[in-house]
């Protein structure tokens, strides 16, 4: 199998990264809808954030280039996404532990009372 361009870093390589990011996004949505476990839903959110970050990096890499190098705005935004993901994971897991202390379960179908 001989390909006319380098898959990883050629002029037409952008589509490969977009496909990988789209599949990651789909996996995240699937986990969001189908999981009953709160931590499983959090795993889905992390997958979605990773897909968005991968898209940012890919468009930053294949975007316009100035005289002295690439535009790095996409990489900066990915750093912000990683910080947001860390903050979101910390708060979400604190909520999971609080729910577990109150209800002795983290299956979100079972947590259906406002005041226990």
């Amino acid at each position: 199998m001989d390909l006319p361009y380098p898959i990883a870093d050629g002029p037409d390589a952008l589509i490969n990264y977009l496909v990988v990011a789209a599949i990651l996004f789909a996996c995240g949505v699937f986990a969001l809808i189908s999981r009953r476990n709160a931590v499983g839903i959090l795993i889905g959110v992390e997958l979605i954030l990773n897909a968005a970050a991968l898209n940012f990096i890919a468009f930053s890499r294949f975007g316009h280039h100035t005289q002295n190098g690439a535009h790095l705005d996409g990489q900066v935004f990915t750093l912000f996404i990683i910080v947001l993901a860390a903050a979101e994971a910390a708060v979400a897991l604190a909520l999971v532990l609080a729910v577990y202390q109150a209800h002795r379960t983290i299956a979100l179908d079972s947590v259906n009372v406002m005041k226990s």
Partner: protein
Amino acid sequence: MSISALVFWLIAGGTVGTAVFAVIARNILHAAFSLCGTFLGVAALYVFLHADFVAAVQVIVYVGGILVLIMFAIMFSSNMVEQTAERRRGWMALAAGGLTAFATLQIALLINRHLSTPLALQNVHGGQPYVPTASVAPGQTSIGHLLMGQYLLPFEFMSILLLAVLIGAVVIVRKEIR
């Protein structure tokens, strides 16, 4: 097929495979371990895209921080009977996932096509075919200049957000003392 293409397909396949296993695994702890492979694969894709610093941050924060937090929460609230419980709304979730993948890909390509000068898929730079070169990776120095210059306000907002999250997480999980 060149070596770099082979490595790229191996890494992309590993990333996608571990992500799929992370969402279909019945045991949530297996899903968390599989998620480790996904994070490392995405970091390797960042290296392919000449984003070395972001790849290092990805490994440190995701694998070293978030994954450890997730495993801590799983083992703290472990209830093995419940972890293997029935999945809900399986077919609807599958359809929604497939539709989302298709839609995001189409939207990304549509935006790319309707930019004033499309990225990489057509000729840019005055008709010359665009070929990324190895010399366009200025590295963390330029990122630092951007963070301290153009993106200083979002950067400071991030620090305030992290402080608020630190306090908020402690307040949420603390024991009530009266």
